């Protein structure tokens, strides 16, 4: 079953966006200096879309992600999930950072299973369904080519492998939303490109909604349905770019004229 982890394919037709940012503003008080980071940012993410946010450092991309995960309180504006404003951490969110932050005392399998020990209803079913959960962890690890590493500890894995485990962990509890905060930023260029295809495979498999923050324009284009370009502080959305390349995308596509055209479009807005 390819779509065994698909959370909710039927509602793909519904018209309410799964995520909606409305007039989000954010100010930081840095040593008495009031800095506006986000200035009335609005954007909507459709269910099962892959959306990327690109923009200069410090433009508040990560803040937007943290608002969705409930890690950052919303100062002004609303973020809605399925039409309901977010007030506390959502249960159906998976998150992966630039740093894979695996728990060093757990092996690969135990790291991937972690969310199931916390998120309901899995938490209370953990004992009963352990075998099934281990099977889905195994399936995810297989998708990312780590089937032989279930009993390895993080110190025995390379940077790219750890990041793949981190992605599996973000997806194991079948979240409706996957938040990716520069997940491949610390990897070398070759590994990074491998990870794009692998992440695409995971995403196609789970059909979740993905929100990616990245500095890498090619990465954003390769993976996304829509790319939002944000300006420097105080940030606003400069461009909403729809990427209509067919799926699954391949590395060859990144050499096509169409890809280059989209790439230049993004670049022009970043260095406006």
């Amino acid at each position, binding site marked *: 079953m390819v779509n065994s982890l698909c959370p909710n394919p039927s509602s793909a037709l519904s018209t309410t966006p799964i995520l909606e940012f409305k007039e989000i503003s954010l100010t930081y008080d840095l040593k008495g200096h009031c800095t506006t980071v986000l200035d009335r940012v609005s954007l909507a993410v459709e269910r099962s879309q892959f959306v990327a946010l690109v923009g200069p450092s410090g433009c508040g991309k990560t803040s937007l992600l943290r608002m969705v995960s409930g890690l950052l309180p919303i100062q002004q504006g609303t973020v809605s999930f399925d039409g309901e404003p977010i007030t506390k951490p959502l249960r159906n969110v998976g998150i992966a950072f630039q*740093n894979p932050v695996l728990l060093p005392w757990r092996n690969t399998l135990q790291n991937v299973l972690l969310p199931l020990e916390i998120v309901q209803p899995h938490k209370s079913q953990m004992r009963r369904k352990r075998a099934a959960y281990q099977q889905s962890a195994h399936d995810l690890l297989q998708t990312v080519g780590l089937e032989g590493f279930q009993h390895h500890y993080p110190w025995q894995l390379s940077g790219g492998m750890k990041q793949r485990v981190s992605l599996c962990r973000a997806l194991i*509890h079948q979240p409706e939303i996957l938040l990716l905060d520069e997940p491949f930023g610390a990897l070398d260029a070759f590994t990074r490109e491998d990870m794009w295809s692998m992440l695409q495979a995971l995403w196609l498999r789970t059909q979740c909604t993905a929100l990616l923050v990245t500095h890498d324009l090619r990465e954003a284009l390769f993976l996304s349905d829509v790319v939002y370009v944000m300006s420097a502080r105080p940030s606003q959305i400069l461009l909403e770019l729809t990427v209509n390349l067919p799926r699954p995308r391949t590395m060859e596509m990144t050499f096509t004229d169409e890809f280059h055209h989209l790439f230049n479009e993004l670049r022009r807005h970043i260095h406006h």
Partner: protein
Amino acid sequence: MLKQQILPISLSSRYATYLLPTLATITILIFWELIVHLFSIPAFILPAPSAILGSLGNWGMVVWQNSLVTLQTTLIGFAIALFTGLVLGFLIGYSKLVYTTLYPILVGFNTIPKVAIVPLLAIWFGIGTIPAVMTAFLLAFFTIAVNVSLGLSTVEPEMRDVLKSLGASQWEVFQKVGFPHSLPYLFASLKIAISQAFIGSVISETVASDRGIGYLIVTATSNFDIALAFLCLLTLAVMGIALYAIFAVVEQRTVHWLR
């Protein structure tokens, strides 16, 4: 390789780590024995290793009984230190208020040489086991408390974020991240703390006790039975190493994931 030409075995082998210190110890003992005989050093100044070993016949049982006393005070003091250290470490690590209030006091207290407190303890609790247990505890708890709090407060914020974003409660964050993260710190401190507890009980025994190895050393030297004093020192060394080794092994087993 040059190293292999000098030594018949590789320095990194497990074998070498046992063999070389043993050889060094035997060499030192042989030199010691020779020097004592060559220069006819009297036994009340420096007894030969053979004479020290010889006193085992006379004093073996006494040394054994007193070392059990020292071991007992050490372990009781260590157990209290472990409990106190865990509670204090937890409070300091998790509460900014407790940290700000208590930490300077603890640091201040820790700088007092504990031998200076023993006479007071003797006045309050009388001569014997209680001051020894107290000194062992006083020397050991600080290390444990500091390490546990360090382990709790150095959890990577992102690790906590991963759990919080899943909706984990404070308790779950402690259970899944804080506690395991502080384990290496705790176990690293235990092998230091057990040595400190051991030092504490011996210090107290030399000042304010009527039993234990510390007391036996003081008695032996005042009787000019230097061979017995050395036998006691040897016993202390063996006990100290054994206690350290036990906790070092426990550490290795429990936090194997640290490489």
